[in-house]
């Protein structure tokens, strides 16, 4: 496999198509949790009825298309190699939780990888849809259409008072989790995130790093999502989230301007040094790689580095995860070998940009 093919493989096609405010919001995601009526939840561990759910989904939806989402393919967890599962997790098409369900777990993925439907994760069905940039409204409208399409063949567990019934009480009601992935380097550099996060939490929204553990956000990438799913309509949830995201975008833009004004040449130097590291290093840890990738992306947004595509941040963040590296190397790699391989891959990717 050539590097180009591999990247086509690593980057879901939908990611390359713009979207609103895409210098700061990398992607919008909608997830709907749905269950079948009169079937125990996957959390009950009763294999027989769950296998029937899987068989039914395969029979009704595998190979089907809906509007622009062509040719849904079903992959059973029991048929996938550990590395293949890891790659699907790193592309955010399945959850680590689903990967562990070797018995009845499966996923339906549309050809363009924009829609994935997890079968027998925590709930019978978890429908996910991604859009580039800030497009929550479009995403939720489309998710509803797909939801209605699925509902045509399935009776959902629904209660007039409690709404869509889910395995976990934190999802009941709309079963909706809306989230946006944001790149917030200036707010992080100026230490403002520490103050902003608790404020956002008070509004029933959650902010966390996408990569990295705890409060650490590798690559200055954050995910903002709703926590409350009951007592608010989907429109309200989306509106609340969108208005907070817009605030964050404005603050990030103001902070970028401020840093450039205050310390233009120092910032330019810092960002170009990161470019230097990525273009030349022979061993690189994922933490350093994420930091440098975030710097390059900021330099592209500020118009300093030209001729490198914006998607390099999202692309290489996925590409340099352990699963992808090993998939590309076609063998298992020790952490040390991964660091060498990661450095090589990033160098090749950057050279490719310059040739284009």
């Amino acid at each position: 496999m050539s590097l180009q093919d591999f990247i086509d493989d690593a980057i879901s096609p939908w990611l390359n198509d713009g979207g609103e405010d895409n210098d700061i919001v990398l992607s919008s995601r909608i997830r709907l949790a749905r269950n079948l009526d009169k079937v125990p939840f996957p959390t009950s561990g009763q294999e027989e009825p769950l296998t029937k759910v899987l068989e039914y989904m395969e029979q009704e939806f595998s190979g089907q298309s809906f509007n622009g989402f062509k040719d849904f393919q079903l992959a059973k967890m029991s048929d996938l190699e550990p590395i293949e599962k890891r790659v699907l997790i790193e592309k955010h098409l399945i959850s680590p939780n689903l990967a562990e369900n070797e018995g009845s777990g499966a996923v339906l993925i549309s050809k363009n990888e924009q829609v994935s439907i997890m079968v027998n994760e925590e709930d019978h069905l978890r429908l996910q849809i991604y859009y580039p940039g800030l497009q929550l409204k479009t995403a939720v409208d489309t998710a509803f259409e797909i939801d209605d399409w699925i509902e045509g063949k399935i009776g959902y567990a629904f209660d007039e008072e409690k709404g869509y019934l889910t395995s976990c009480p934190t999802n009941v009601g709309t079963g909706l989790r809306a989230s946006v992935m944001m790149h917030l380097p200036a707010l992080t550099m100026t230490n403002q995130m520490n103050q902003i996060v608790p404020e956002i939490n008070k509004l029933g929204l959650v902010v966390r790093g996408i990569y990295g553990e705890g409060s650490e956000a590798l690559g200055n990438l954050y995910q903002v999502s709703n926590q409350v799913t009951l007592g608010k309509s989907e429109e309200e949830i989306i509106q609340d989230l969108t208005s907070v995201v817009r605030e964050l975008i404005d603050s990030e833009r103001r902070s970028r301007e401020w840093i450039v004004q205050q310390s233009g040449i120092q910032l330019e130097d810092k960002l170009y040094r990161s470019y230097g590291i990525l273009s030349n290093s022979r061993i690189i840890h994922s933490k350093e790689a994420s930091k440098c990738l975030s710097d390059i992306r900021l330099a592209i947004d500020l118009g300093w580095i030209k001729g490198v595509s914006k998607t390099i941040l999202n692309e290489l963040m996925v590409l340099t995860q352990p699963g992808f590296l090993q998939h590309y190397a076609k063998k298992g790699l020790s952490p040390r070998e991964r660091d060498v391989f990661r450095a090589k891959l990033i160098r090749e990717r950057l050279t490719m940009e310059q040739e284009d």
Partner: protein
Amino acid sequence: MECQRCHKNDASVHYTQVINGKKDEVHLCEECAEKEGYMDFSNQHLSMHQFLTSMVPLDSAFNKSQSIKPETTTQCDYCGMTYGEFRRKGKFGCSHCYESFSSYLTPLLKRVHSGNTEHVGKIPKRIGGNLHKQREVESLQTKLQEAIQAEAFEEAATIRDQIHQLKQELEEERKGGEA
């Protein structure tokens, strides 16, 4: 502090072991700690859901007034899950559990969903037009109040007519159902 074993990564596992009264402090990074067998980090991360559901108190006030414990006696008649099991797992066994444990759910839902207990969003199509229409009447009534407050009386009149129309349709459906 760097890891004592690989001297490369930051130490994030700090461990004091006492063997025969001799105290040893160990500082390792996650990777080395896992290799040395001190800890298994896969699946260690507490999810937000686990965190929220474990926070819910065991309806202490309710227990005091009752001699029987709901943990073992309240059971879902569809999947067999007991209330105690639900408390431990934080996950329901089936959709009927919501009904079976309904008397204990309100405080939990309130805590998790900022005080809300009732769904106001999307409704499955198969539930039929009835509930859709009822919800629309409710939402129009709110709009009507807003319009009156804003003294937009022309708009209020239109909304009132819409409500009237929907209510008539609901009434006819109900009669049809009885006949």
